[in-house]
């Protein structure tokens, strides 16, 4: 392995500083005793305590979580179905058009997605609130799921399905006993992606929400406009913590599975 040269070290430090100093500042100031955000007044956890009595923030967090869970779940089902159709049934007219149309929302500006959804909900007279945010999130996160699942399906060995059918499984049973378990990691990854996307979406949620359904990002944003309080720093720190722990656990599990697999394969090759 190459040793790190001075240049490497400097660029590494600069890069990571660029990425993490803002977040680090936010975390530090969440423990600030002072009410003023930019003046350090000693260490304290009082903002975390006051957070617990801020019913508005807790409500917003609960709405966000429910929206994220529901929309990620529905988007995963729809996205998986879309991916299966687009990879398997390659001989229908306009497949390329449909593939493009599934992926277009990936690059569509959020403002446009949000606005068009708002227009639709108004036009059909749907009352805006929890349902409309969820529908909007399903719409835009579905294509992310489709992309993730599709890439897994493209490398899927079709002979597995043929083998299952050859052994007497109907196409439906084949799907649930062979195809689904094999592509499950991609589906889970797609769900997690959709969940995170929904969790931190501000723009689309602002367009499609109504009274009584305020998500956490919206609540934080509206409070910040009235002035940043250390409470917001505390909420953000908790969010960073949750996401951070999630990512670390996922990568550890992945890593362990990888190592185990490699060891198994070596053992198998030797004897």
């Amino acid at each position, binding site marked *: 392995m190459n040793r790190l040269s001075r240049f490497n070290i400097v660029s590494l430090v600069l890069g990571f500083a660029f990425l993490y100093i803002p977040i680090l500042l936010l975390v530090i100031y969440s423990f600030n005793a002072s009410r003023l955000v930019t003046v350090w007044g000693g260490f304290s956890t009082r903002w975390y305590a006051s957070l617990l009595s801020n019913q508005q923030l807790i409500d917003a967090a609960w709405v966000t979580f429910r929206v994220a869970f529901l929309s990620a779940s529905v988007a995963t089902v729809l996205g998986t179905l879309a991916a299966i159709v687009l990879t398997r049934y390659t001989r229908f007219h306009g497949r390329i058009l449909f593939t493009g149309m599934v992926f277009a929302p990936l690059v569509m500006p959020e403002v446009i997605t949000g606005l068009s959804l708002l227009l639709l909900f108004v036009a059909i007279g749907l009352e805006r609130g929890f349902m409309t945010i969820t529908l909007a999130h399903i719409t835009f996160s579905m294509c992310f799921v489709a992309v993730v699942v599709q890439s897994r399906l493209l490398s899927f*060995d079709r*002979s*597995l399905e*043929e*083998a*299952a*059918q*050859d*052994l*007497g*499984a*109907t196409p439906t*049973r084949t799907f649930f*006993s*062979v195809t689904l*378990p*094999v592509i499950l990691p991609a589906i889970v990854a797609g769900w997690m992606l959709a969940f995170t996307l929904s969790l931190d979406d501000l723009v689309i949620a602002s367009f499609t929400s109504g009274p009584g359904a305020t998500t956490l990002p919206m609540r934080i944003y509206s409070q910040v406009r009235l002035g940043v309080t250390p409470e917001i720093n505390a909420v953000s720190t908790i969010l960073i913590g949750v996401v951070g722990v999630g990512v670390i656990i996922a990568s550890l599990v992945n890593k362990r599975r990888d190592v185990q*697999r490699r060891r*198994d*394969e070596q*053992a*198998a*090759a030797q*004897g």
Partner: protein
Amino acid sequence: MKSLGSIRRSFAPWTDPNAKPFISFENVTKRFGDFTAVDNLSLHVYEREFFALLGASGCGKSTLLRMLAGFEQPSSGRILLDGQDLAGIPPYRRPVNMMFQSYALFPHMTVEKNIAYGLKQDGMAKADIETRVAEMLKLVKLEQFARRKPHQLSGGQRQRVALARSVAKRPKVLLLDEPLGALDKKLREETQFELMDLQQQLGLTFMVVTHDQEEAMTMADRIAIMDKGKVIQVATPAEVYEAPSSRFVADFVGSVNIFEGRVAGRDEGRIEIATADGVTIRADDANAAGQGTVWYAVRPEKIRISSKRPENPALNAIEGEVWDIGYLGDMTVYNVKLASGQIVRSSELNRHRTSEDPLTWNDRAWLTFPADAGVVLTR
């Protein structure tokens, strides 16, 4: 009594005019767009036969197998299994099982679960499944690997799991797509004999697709040689080798020397062929050649090589120059160049550790073979 090849056959239903074929392909054609993979092909396979489809890649042999399994539908023609037309029957209702080239083991299931999969689909009772799985594990000697996942097994072990899984349901026919293709040479040779034993033990009909002629020769009762979607010859390994029907078959199976010439004379079922070298070859004419161009195909091991001209005038004798020698241990291969530039191959079995007539590069040498050493081909 004289017989083609060195094996006396005790199993030969194809010679019995009253025997009913078990699998019949009747004028089967399969087109993919403009490409014709299988071209108006008819073929009969008998019960308990070990049948091999041999051909280069793209000759349509795998397509034939996949049509029997139900993964492809014939564009025209019929496929019958035990008298039943298979048209319209989906793969999961056909009494055939297939062992896939990639093995297609379910990666998320243990060896046990893989083998039990087909039995479960049939709704077999749990206790019966367990008994059958144990029996299969024993058959392929993998008892201690029952709880492992496919990625924890070596290539050879995976191959056995795939085999156990495909015979667990006791199908009427077992289809094997390049069953030994992924194994190394030594393991392949061992496994060939194991497959033959297994077929005998279970009394199943095996249909194997392979591009490896040695594999087909070793295992099969009969071989169908395929080229461009057509069957060129269906025969026992000995017939395919000793009595090929065409230059294609002669050349495809083993190595062969082919002399081109005209029929110059005829005498009691024997013809004289005048070759381009100005040599006359006397040959048994089993194929009743006409007047045009004929080819005489003779295998290297049927040609003797010597530094002296043979005394027996009944033998064919051709003179040439030793061009290349390959010493393989059990035998030595000589490439001899004739006056016309044609290279003729002769292989001598090294039955003794010493030789009385050693040859070296650029020596003059005589190649001799009797009239019945080769076959006269007309196409």
